[in-house]
């Protein structure tokens, strides 16, 4: 089977969904959704966490089946029971939860299930050439032979995108594709989307980034609580007006003013010459109430710096001191005892136990504090979890719900809640607002700022430059495992970007 490299884009159909509904047990997550998307249109789908955006896209992509309603392509009713059916119709889904095969290479993943072959013998060379062209077109930089499972999450997302492109899809459904990309990568992706649309591909895009959506899409559909609120031209909207539609009320979503660190604040964290396999001789300090931002490209060692500080990655030299007490190397438990908390970047791999209930996940790292003689004090735990869930605005969790049943953004809130259950003295956060809606994002930013105001020393890693710059008192830029530049909070985006790339 040879792969048609580019289908005739003009054949992209008009997509109409009508009366689409979906229930899980007793709860209805989509109700009577009707909308249509024109050929070649870039269509945004927006809404709060848990509004049903991913569910709708999954139905289009065949990942799940709708309980009610029909999907029509150019007025022709199509049955999409399986992803295979969607792919056959030219619909490709890039889901929010990445779906790569960790043990296969980038090359093998991009052409997953449709590898070039002669009589089913693989012709990897042909796929390699094809991938090379795709890489050139998109500007993504990936090693085709690297194992997908070994890639940082941003690069995994790029593989997903390439996978959809390689299929020559006529309709591309993308669920928060930019959530895990950094600025530069985001820009590349947006360019790719625009050029695809120009060539006739229909793109349906879910995103929580208002500016991004407004700058890209032709029309935008708003979902709220599983219902279709409106579909409108994007051109008439501002970020504020979109938020109003999504939330149904006014919200303030600007990054809160961070209070300056008082000059007498003590140094809480001291990192000295810390090195691990990915981190080279990193030293810095963070004072009480101070927020330190770490910027850099994917793979520059930001997350690994946090992991090394937390005792999770084996360090080869250097040490971490908390309040003057030097932590034993490579002991997560000691780090936690010293009041350190780490919100890791990958909630699915590192943060949450997907097959366990929400409450249990949130309470996991602080079990000892709410137990007696080894028994969990369930009532106490429930009360604490319920309080923290409330303050991070966690929604959609019913009694006994598994973490896996929550929407992506709500999972992220659960992850955050887990590490705030006991207020930490030192908070390390890695991509803290990945996938959360704009209101919740503001809330998380507010919480980080509040914690700092109450004296917590915070280190923030984020691929969103606005977030790093907006939240932090100081910014370190990392490149190839080293700290290469330092800025204060008045730094400009461009300055920071430049130092991340330079040399």
């Amino acid at each position: 089977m040879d792969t048609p490299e580019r289908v005739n884009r003009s054949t992209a159909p008009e997509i109409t969904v009508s009366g689409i509904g979906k229930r899980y047990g007793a709860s209805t997550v989509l109700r009577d959704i009707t909308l249509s998307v024109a050929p070649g249109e870039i269509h945004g789908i927006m809404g709060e966490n848990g509004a049903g955006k991913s569910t709708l896209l999954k139905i289009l992509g065949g990942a799940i089946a709708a309980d009610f309603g029909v999907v029509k392509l150019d007025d022709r009713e199509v049955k999409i029971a399986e992803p295979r059916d969607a792919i056959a119709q030219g619909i490709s889904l890039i889901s929010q939860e990445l779906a790569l095969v960790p043990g296969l290479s980038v090359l093998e993943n991009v052409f997953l299930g449709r590898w070039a072959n002669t009589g089913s013998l693989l012709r990897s060379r042909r796929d390699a050439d094809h991938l090379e062209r795709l890489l050139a077109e998109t500007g993504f930089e990936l090693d085709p032979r690297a194992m997908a499972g070994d890639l940082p999450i941003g690069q995994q997302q790029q593989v997903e995108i390439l996978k959809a492109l390689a299929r020559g899809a006529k309709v591309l459904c993308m669920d928060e594709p930019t959530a895990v990309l950094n600025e530069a990568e985001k820009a590349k992706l947006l360019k790719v989307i625009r050029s695809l649309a120009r060539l006739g591909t229909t793109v349906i895009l879910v995103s929580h980034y208002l500016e991004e959506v407004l700058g890209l899409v032709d029309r935008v559909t708003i979902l709220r609580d599983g219902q279709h609120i409106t579909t409108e031209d994007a051109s008439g909207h501002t970020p504020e007006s979109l938020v109003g539609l999504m939330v149904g009320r006014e919200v303030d979503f600007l990054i809160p003013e961070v209070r300056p660190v008082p000059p007498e604040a003590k140094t809480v964290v001291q990192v000295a010459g810390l090195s691990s396999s990915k981190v080279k001789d990193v030293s810095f300090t963070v004072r009480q109430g101070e927020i330190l931002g770490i910027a850099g490209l994917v793979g520059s060692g930001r997350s690994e710096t946090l992991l090394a500080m937390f005792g999770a990655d084996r360090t080869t030299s250097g040490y971490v001191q908390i309040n003057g007490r030097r932590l034993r190397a490579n002991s997560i438990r000691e780090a936690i005892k010293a009041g350190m908390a780490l919100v890791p970047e990958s909630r699915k791999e590192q943060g949450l136990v997907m097959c366990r209930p929400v409450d249990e996940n949130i309470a996991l790292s602080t079990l000892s504090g709410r137990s007696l003689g080894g028994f969990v004090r369930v009532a106490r735990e429930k009360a604490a979890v319920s309080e923290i869930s409330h303050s991070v605005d966690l929604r959609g969790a019913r009694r006994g719900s598994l973490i896996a049943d929550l929407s992506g953004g709500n999972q992220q809130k659960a992850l955050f809640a887990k590490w705030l259950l006991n207020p930490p003295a030192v908070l390390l956060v890695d991509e803290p607002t990945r996938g959360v809606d704009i209101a919740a994002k503001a809330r998380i930013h507010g919480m980080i700022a509040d914690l700092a105001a109450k004296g917590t020393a915070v280190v923030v890693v984020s691929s969103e430059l606005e977030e790093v710059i907006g939240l932090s008192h100081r910014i370190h830029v990392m490149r190839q495992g080293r700290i290469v530049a330092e800025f204060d909070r008045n730094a400009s985006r461009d300055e920071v970007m430049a130092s991340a790339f330079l040399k």
Partner: protein
Amino acid sequence: MTTVTAAVSEPAEKKFKLNVRDFGIVFGLIAIMLLLTLNTGTFLTGRNFINLFDQAAIVGLLAAAATLCIVSGVFDLSSTANLAVSAIAGVMITQHLGVIAGFVGALLVGAALGTVTGLIVVSTKVNSFIGTLAVSIIYRGLAIVITGGAIVAPLPEQLAAFQTWTWPSLFGLTAGSVLMVAMTIVLGIVLWRTTFGRRIYAVGGNKEAARLSGIRTGSIHVAVFAISGLCSAMAGMILASRAGSAQPAMAIGIELTAIAAVVIGGTSILGGHGAMWRAFVGVMILTVIGNGFNLLHWDTTYQQVVTGVLILLAVAADGLFFRKRTG
């Protein structure tokens, strides 16, 4: 937040539904039991239930331990080899220091060997399936080395006391059955309500997330193997008590029956999921099927075919009609 409140306030119906689904496999067991009650005059008798529990004691103890192991993401294929060594050690200690010392000694040996198994698996980072398989070969060899391949028995005058686990006790059940039920309940509570139990689920569900939550995943696994060893030793003492002796080939292969029982009950082989009552139900399904066949006077030529089909039906029904699937 409104949603959260709403969620908490729609509980009754929801909760009931969920439970019915969750307990699918119980209906499988009840169906088989109903069938046997209607077709034999002998199934639903006190005597037969005493037998059933007695027959379930060994696999029940091993399955309770296997549940902890499997939920935490490991297998212990060395459990019955450990059983043999512990029972042999128990008998040998009995010969020198008396019956009580023998029982206590067996438990200590079982727990110690279990700990060793755990340390080996954790420190070598070998997959537990293959690691404990190798350990089981070693322990069986050890049993032969200790005994020279012979049978060991307590002194004749100790025999009556040594056979204490076969005596009737609570509700007429044998002491061995009571021990099995008690351990199932205790370990059930451990899994369900203690910090240790929570950690077991977390380690089995996502080892990396557990590690980053400050859980010493290695310690959890060692502890789980130690408990498995303890249960093996208990099972070993019951077997030795019944037989009045112990030998290196005791209970070969029963570790797989125990794992099968755990999985039939509905505990996921992938870890992170499951419950202790499921092991008990799984053990009971296997025991009742075997028991029922003999009560029914059917031609035993077809026994195996029908047994296989029944197991398949019980598990498939659980999957297809009752339990919620998670992809």
